[in-house]
């Protein structure tokens, strides 16, 4: 059980770490590919979508790939 929990927590950290890298790219460039309304938005808008993108990066990435 201890090993199982330990692996789970490590996986969670890795998920968030990938999410952090993705979310920075998403805020700077990726969101525009998904939604035209993002073009020209102020920096503080880009900042507030980072946490959500970090948590939902799998969903967003698949959506961007499907849109392509």
């Amino acid at each position, binding site marked *: 059980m*201890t090993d199982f*929990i330990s692996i789970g927590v490590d996986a969670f950290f890795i998920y968030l770490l990938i999410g952090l890298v993705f979310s920075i790219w998403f805020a700077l460039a990726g969101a525009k590919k998904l*939604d035209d309304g*993002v073009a020209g938005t102020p920096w*503080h808008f880009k900042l507030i979508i980072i946490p959500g993108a*970090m*948590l*939902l990066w799998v*969903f967003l990435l698949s959506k961007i790939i499907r849109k392509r």
Partner: protein
Amino acid sequence: MSVSYTSILWNKQKKAYDIGVLIFVLSFTVLFFGGHAVLHPNATFETVLIRNFGLLAFLMLHLILVIGPLTRLNPKFLIILYNRRHLGVTMFIMAAIHGIFSILNFHSLSNTNPLKSVFLSNLQYDSLINFPFQVLGFFALILLALMATTSHDFWLKNLGPKVWKSLHMLVYLAYALIILHVVLGALQNETSPILFGVVLLGFVIIASLHVLSGLKEQPADVAIDDAKSDFVRACNTSEIKENRAKIVTVSGERVAIFKYNGKLSAVNNFCRHQGGPLGEGKIIDGCITCPWHGYQYRPEDGQSPPPFTEKVETYHLKLEGDQVWIDPKPLPEGTPVQPVTMNNG
């Protein structure tokens, strides 16, 4: 309604709402710390801080959960619904402070990763009395984080209304986890029954208001059609007040039939902004206006006036004498439909 996004679309009402929330948080914190200094002078600063923000988040969650049913029971409560998103985000911040300081205070003094310590420091998962209640709080915090970070129109649009709504319905799961977190935590640390009584009272209030508002809305939720029907009778024209709507359920969707200027039009009841009930709004300046945040749609095509782009489904109507009939098949969002003209205006 905005064409391009910004972080927060401030207006006078939102500012007043947020100032109210801030005053509540600050007053509560001052009173809580003051009360502890008098009643529990030996409590450490960290302990009081953890308790303060945990209790604040718990209270705010109760308020958030009763806002929906209260507004359905009485529109006067719309004033507290107006900026519920900011209330939710504030509640998450309170919960996050509680969670972070709890982890720092109780799990960061060993060599074990603090987050792993939350799960591993107490392994009595098979015990009710000694269950590691902090784990439940952790999962609740993750759910609250998902909701708080997606509390913006950008997410509503890009996740889609149904996914977004489903995601935000997780608040009930978070509430259940928090109730267990509080009760199991209290079982291990509290001897007084007061806390259990207060938690139970909160649950009873939330459950009762949901049941009452559900009973009030039940008639509108009874489908008036079956899968095969063409046009079905919805209501009489006299049942709809001028510039208002009658809500009926067809094909599993709530539809608002509006009466205005001697005409009738039907649109989907679900506002594309935050899911507000369009049928409880009214026609203002020729547009259906959502009672929650004032989003507008033209009744004849379900489209927001330019430059805005929100659209809802429209429906065909017909009149037989005084009776209004509706085709249960929704037309694609924003489809123009000739309004039905009433002879007697």
